[in-house]
């Protein structure tokens, strides 16, 4: 497998790896670290991966092994999470990742119908998690105008869902 193709494959696997690690470790930060280590390790051993038939399964198993090591090393070791390894179904992970991407795409479509100011306000508040004070500074609005803009945007989105 060419390096560029392997890179694309690993990037495509990242959401599934992240979701699996989050389910096992129950920590977004720990999952991010574990996925990062797993992908870098796979990349460093990319010459060995030429003979791997199912790279997705190989990467998933490698991630699970790292999660087991992480759980065993951590002080708050929980056997039920180790038992979760058997219950984390790759197909279910694949479906959940696809559903998440579908929902995100749907929201993109809905937000594209909003006025630009409302779209910016919604993105800052509900996607990036920016505070009201920071939104006032960035948008150059008063606090009342920020609340009013957000309210109008959410009403429009709700109407789109119905």
């Amino acid at each position, binding site marked *: 497998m060419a390096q560029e193709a392997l890179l694309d494959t690993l990037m495509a696997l990242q959401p599934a790896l*992240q979701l699996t690690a989050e389910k096992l470790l129950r920590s977004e930060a720990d999952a991010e*670290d574990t996925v*990062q280590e797993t992908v*870098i390790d796979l990349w460093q051993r990319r010459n060995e991966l030429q003979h791997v038939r199912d790279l997705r399964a190989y990467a998933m198993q490698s991630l699970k092994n790292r999660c087991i090591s992480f759980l065993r090393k951590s002080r708050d070791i929980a056997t039920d999470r180790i038992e979760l390894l058997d219950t984390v179904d790759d197909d279910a992970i694949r479906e959940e990742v696809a559903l998440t*991407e579908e*929902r995100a795409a749907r*929201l993109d479509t809905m937000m594209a119908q909003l006025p630009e100011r409302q779209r910016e306000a919604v993105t800052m508040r509900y*996607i990036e998690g920016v505070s009201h004070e920071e939104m006032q500074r960035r948008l150059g609005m008063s606090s009342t105008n920020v609340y009013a803009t957000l309210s109008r945007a959410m009403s429009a989105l709700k109407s789109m869902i119905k």
Partner: protein
Amino acid sequence: MENKELQELFAAKRTTEANRRRQAELRQQLEAAAVPAAPAKSRRLWPVWAGSIAASIALVLLTMPGLFRRAGEQPVLVAEAGEAIEAIDTIEAIETIETIETINPKPAKTFHSTAAVLAAAEEEALPDLETETEEPTTPTIEVPAIELADNATPEPPASNAPRIHRRTSTSMVNSSNIETVQPMPSDFQNFLASAFGTETDTPFNLTTFNL
């Protein structure tokens, strides 16, 4: 935000945005010329590195006394090796003496020390190459020159001793190649003289015809 479905949409959007950010970071790391051995963001990897360094230092400290001890043992090992070689020399010397005594029996000698055995072996057992070496002798075969004067009948060999044919190379000399040279008949000599215009008073040499 009260609408649950809308909450799910925003959660999915946040997840995909976070994954895009992670993918960008990962791609940047993997595309770099030297992939770092450990991710820089990872906060929990420092115990691994610290443990590795500590283990390496401990291994070195544990190994150093052994190295010094081995260095002290080295002369002992060398001495043991010298004794072993001396023992082998002694055995070889005794075997050599026994061989010589078998060939040329002499009164048995009694050696009281290894040095004596070795000295005796050097004096008696080793052959003197300068005095005993002789030039190899090769058998020589004398080939008498056959030269006939005109009208002279080749003299028969004084005895019946075989003579070597001239065209026979020395490497082919053996009993089968040795034949007796018969005297040339006078009629044949006259025929040769008339055929090649040789005067009768000129000495006729058979070697001219490369017989």
